[in-house]
């Protein structure tokens, strides 16, 4: 048999539409259609054999074997829409025993709300069972005996038999695939949001870094342009060093931002003995001027000789972030740095034996509804604060990530109007 013959005989096509609902949706129809076409080809081939009685019996057997071997539910209906033949997959998919389906109108398998539409489509199909363009992006549903609806993919082939034209529907339950697709879509959305947050952060970071450099480089230049007055050769030379270093810094910032776009950084940790008193003193040095300007008292309460084995740079960065926040969000009062050792509770195997760094402020505090969000990346709790408090809202996120990398954790207590206490706890080694 030549290709042309069986194409004509089988009139194989795949039409999505009999089962109703129309939604844009793209699916792996190729393979599915191929199976349907193959089925139609075999059906057609079998019908060619059905010339003699013996041939017909053999053909019937082959036909049933073929139906049973199909991976999908196969439902063959006559022009009145009555079910003539099904395979056992149909019983499984729709939950009906065979005897409850044979002779019934196939609308039984279609959700109620689509039945009108479905009959119209079916009649239309029988009037003109020709090859139609397959509807791209159609979403169809079947209904099980227990009333559950489920998404399906259907392909149809008209069969010309001695009893008249029948239509073979091959029905695939695509519930699982839909679920995966939904999960995938949600995942993609999450990723998109994360990427957007990252871009916002990078833009904000770029802005925050450039703003002070604008003044540093700008006024260094005005001095070098001798706008305020002449310079001694030494002054000029030193100012040039300031400017070139500033420009270097700017180029590093630009490189860093580029890099951050490409890579989600990996933090290298190298542990060493760190005197807690020294670590706190270094941080206090950084924030003392800012605190003094606001009239905030800085209190240091660190017992001598507490040593922690950790990454000094990471510890410094965490403490500096906590300290900067404390000063930033405190208008009056004090910021206290405290270090204590903590013991695992007696007789317990769980719990933490470590070193606790506390940064205690008398600032604005954090509203209960904002407390779950403060460690999220790139967000200060109230974006209207952004200008008055500055910063990219990254400090706590980075600090918590760093603390985790160091084997520790950050916790906090806060009361609106009273202040906040942030605690970094590191394991004692």
């Amino acid at each position, binding site marked *: 048999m030549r290709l042309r013959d069986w194409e004509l005989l089988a009139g194989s096509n795949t039409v999505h539409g009999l089962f109703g609902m129309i939604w844009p949706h793209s699916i792996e129809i190729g393979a599915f259609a191929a199976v349907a076409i193959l089925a139609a080809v075999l059906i057609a081939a079998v019908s060619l054999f059905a010339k003699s009685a013996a041939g017909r019996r053999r053909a019937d057997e082959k036909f049933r074997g073929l139906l049973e071997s199909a991976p999908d539910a196969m439902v063959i209906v006559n022009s009145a829409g009555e079910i003539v033949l099904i395979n056992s997959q149909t019983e499984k998919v729709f939950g009906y025993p065979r005897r409850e389906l044979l002779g019934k109108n196939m609308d039984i398998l279609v959700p109620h709300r689509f039945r009108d539409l479905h009959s119209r489509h079916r009649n239309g199909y029988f009037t003109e069972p020709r090859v139609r363009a397959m509807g791209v992006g159609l979403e169809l549903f079947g209904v099980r005996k227990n009333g559950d609806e489920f998404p399906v993919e259907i392909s149809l082939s008209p069969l010309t038999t001695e009893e008249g034209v029948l239509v073979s529907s091959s029905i695939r339950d695509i519930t699982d695939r839909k679920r995966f697709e939904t999960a995938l879509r949600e995942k993609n959305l999450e990723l998109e949001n994360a990427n957007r947050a990252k871009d916002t952060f*990078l*833009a904000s970071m*770029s*802005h*925050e870094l*450039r*703003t*002070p*450099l*604008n*003044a*540093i*480089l*700008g*006024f260094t*230049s*005005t001095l070098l*342009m001798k*706008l305020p007055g002449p310079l001694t050769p030494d002054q000029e030379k030193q100012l040039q060093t300031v400017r070139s270093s500033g420009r270097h810094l*700017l180029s590093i910032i630009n490189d860093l*931002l580029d890099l951050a776009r490409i890579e989600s950084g990996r933090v290298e940790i190298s542990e060493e003995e760190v005197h807690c008193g020294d670590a706190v003193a270094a941080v206090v040095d950084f924030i003392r001027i800012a605190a003094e300007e606001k009239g905030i008292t800085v209190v240091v309460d660190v017992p001598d000789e507490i040593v922690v084995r950790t990454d000094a740079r990471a510890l410094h960065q965490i403490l500096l972030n906590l300290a900067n926040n404390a000063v930033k969000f405190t208008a009056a009062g004090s910021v206290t740095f405290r270090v204590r050792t903590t013991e695992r509770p007696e007789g317990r195997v769980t719990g933490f034996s470590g070193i606790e760094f506390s940064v205690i402020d008398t600032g604005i505090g954090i509203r209960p509804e904002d407390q779950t969000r403060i460690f999220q990346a790139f967000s200060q709790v109230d974006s209207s604060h952004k*200008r*008055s408090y500055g910063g990219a809202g990254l400090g706590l996120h980075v600090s918590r990530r760093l603390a985790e990398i160091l084997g520790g954790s950050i916790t906090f207590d806060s009361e609106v109007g009273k202040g906040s206490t942030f605690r970094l706890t590191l394991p004692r080694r």
Partner: protein
Amino acid sequence: MSARILIIEDNEAAMDLMVYLLHTSGYRTFSAENGAEGLRLAKQELPDLIVCDINLPEMDGLEVLWLLKENSGARSIPIVAVTALAMVGDRERLLRAGFDGYISKPIDPEIFVAQMEALLRSARPNFGK
């Protein structure tokens, strides 16, 4: 008569720097540290050029731009964005929004005044004559 330039900028150091550069070149300046004040001064003084930061408290530079363009008196004053928003795409975005110029921070003091002059000349061909 020297040109009059309105600067809308919330960062004090950036403001000082631009005011200093323009004063030493003989320009008159008006300073506004937020968008509302900037709009008020723009309508009242009708300066020859407006320099506007973008990340401003409450009303940002884009809103300032839109509101200026709605004002019949101030509509034709050229307005240049001077901003630390200097990521890829920011220049295009701001020029498309309707700014007549874009200068990223850190500004270059050696050419800043020349940049202002160029903007004034392109907006007012008879300027200085």
